[in-house]
């Protein structure tokens, strides 16, 4: 059984008189340990797909099953609990809490789990170490560079040991050098920590770090390139 399963998922939005359907009867399986990249022209529904998998948005029809749980059937509170335990979300713009330090930002998801203070500290330290920012733990977001902020965002997404991490254009607002660092980091997390990833990007080079590349266009997957050269 796949870790993430989408069965005939559709989602449309109403914009004034017209209805746009970014996802039209889409199905997809992601196996545990896979690193899937999702490309496509902007406005085709890539983010929408991530949001549905994360349970912060709901499909009009279809099933989304993550590790045996149908997330479309959960209440808003149940979804919050489910995300706290199972999902990491990496935003395009890191979305760190500005009043909290790097350490506190990373600590936030662990506060939602039943952990002892020492387990919590250990997890946060490990996550910061994984993204190479142990020495910046006490810094506030505004004291960090764009690349560092994004790495704190990544640490926050993995600190609770989620089953799936979704990333919405994680390098989209970084220059090419820091983008490179983040790519290497994401690849390492997938390979070394075996984290299952679903990443949206519109950069072919970035998509190249994935183990499987998908392209979404006009509500459907096109040109499905399972298992690329990597």
């Amino acid at each position, binding site marked *: 059984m796949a870790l993430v399963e989408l069965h005939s998922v559709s989602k449309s939005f109403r914009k004034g008189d017209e209805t746009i359907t970014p996802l039209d009867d889409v199905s997809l399986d992601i196996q545990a340990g896979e690193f899937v990249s999702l490309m496509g022209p902007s406005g085709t529904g890539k*983010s929408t797909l991530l*949001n549905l998998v*994360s349970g*912060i*948005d709901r499909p009009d029809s279809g099933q989304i099953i993550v590790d045996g749980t149908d997330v479309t059937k959960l209440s*808003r*509170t149940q979804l*919050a*609990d*489910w*995300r*706290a*335990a199972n*999902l990491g*979300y990496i*935003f395009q713009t890191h*979305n760190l*809490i*500005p*009043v*909290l330090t790097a350490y*506190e930002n990373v600590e*936030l*998801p662990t*506060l*939602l789990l039943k952990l002892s203070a020492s387990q919590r500290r250990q997890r946060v330290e490990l996550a910061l170490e994984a993204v190479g920012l142990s020495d910046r733990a006490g810094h506030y977001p505004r004291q960090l560079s764009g690349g560092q902020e994004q790495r704190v965002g990544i640490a*926050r997404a993995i600190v*609770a040991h989620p089953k799936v991490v979704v990333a919405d254009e994680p390098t989209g607002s970084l220059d090419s050098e820091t983008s490179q660092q983040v790519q290497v980091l994401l690849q390492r997390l997938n390979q070394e920590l075996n984290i299952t990833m679903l990443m949206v990007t519109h950069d072919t080079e970035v998509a190249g770090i994935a183990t499987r590349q998908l392209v979404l266009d006009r509500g459907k997957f096109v040109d499905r390139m399972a298992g690329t050269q990597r």
Partner: protein
Amino acid sequence: MIAYVLKTLWRHRTRTILTVSGSAVAMFVFCFVGSVQEGLHRLTTGSDADRSLIVFQENRFCPTTSRLPEDYARKIREVSGVRDVMPIQVWTNNCRASLDIIVFNGADPAQIEKSRPLKLVSGSWDQFRSQRDAAIVGRSIASRRGLKVGQQFSIGDLSVRIAGVFESTIPSEENLIYTSLAFLQYTRGLDSAGLVTQHEVKLTEDADPDRVAAAIDEKLRSGSVATKTRRKGAFQASTLSDLVDLIGFAHWLGYACVGLVLSLVATTTVMSVQDRIKEYAVLQTIGVRPLTTMRLVLTESILLCLVGGLSGTLLAMIALSLGGFAIGAEGATIAFRPTPNLAVSGSIVSIFVGIIAGIAPAVQAATVPIVKALRQP
């Protein structure tokens, strides 16, 4: 999570400080108004107000105009239900409403000691009894005027030597100055030998105050001056009737203060949530429950109200206890005292207002459309 709330408030400290100090000022006024209301309430209720009568000249209001024979006391004592009578000469510097009213009550020192619930905090009863121009002063007026034992205190034609400072279980009494009856009667300008302003009547346990009052007036009808006898509470309320209306109106001011705190804190919290609506979407994406989100916002508004409200209440309590404030007219005074009751209601109002002010923004934060908020730049 409380650290997050505190840091958020600290981040916008200008806004926080303005809101907190605004709430503090409003709650300060709220407590002051409450204290006046309490003072008035105390004056017209309680055993002193209900179980003593004041015999006054009919159709007279200012103490300078009521002149009853001193020996009415003997006749009043004969009425059944009367336990004791104390003839009192009253002198005041101001018959109109005033914030710095000075009221002298002249009566027999031994009787004062026996029948009034007074305790000397300094000085001695012996000295009060033995010197003709000796006076004991209430704690409030002593602190307001900076009076100490041994000092001479003069006002108008009166000049007394302070023999003691007293506290009383009846706060308004702490605004009085007691002298001997003879001293006040023979004061130049008063010319009241054999006359007193009023008689204070103590009732026996089972006496019906209104019936005794009527009996006294009936008995004295044949005397040289007609009288009007009322319960002390009713007497003071009617003496202060202009003020009573004003004070009754002032409770609206109290409500206005609560409304002010409410709108101030609500505005700040709404602004704070709207500024950071995306942050709440991020928190919920991470896995913070909607209800927890709501609690975070409520904590914020309650903290604002509580810090502001408690400091305003505390300041009011300090001001009230140090200031010895009183408002009075025609020889009766209303004391503003800090009471535990007032402190508790100030705190409860603060928490309550904090919750009310936070509800709308809390719901807004909890039900934020996550995707839409995240799509904002």
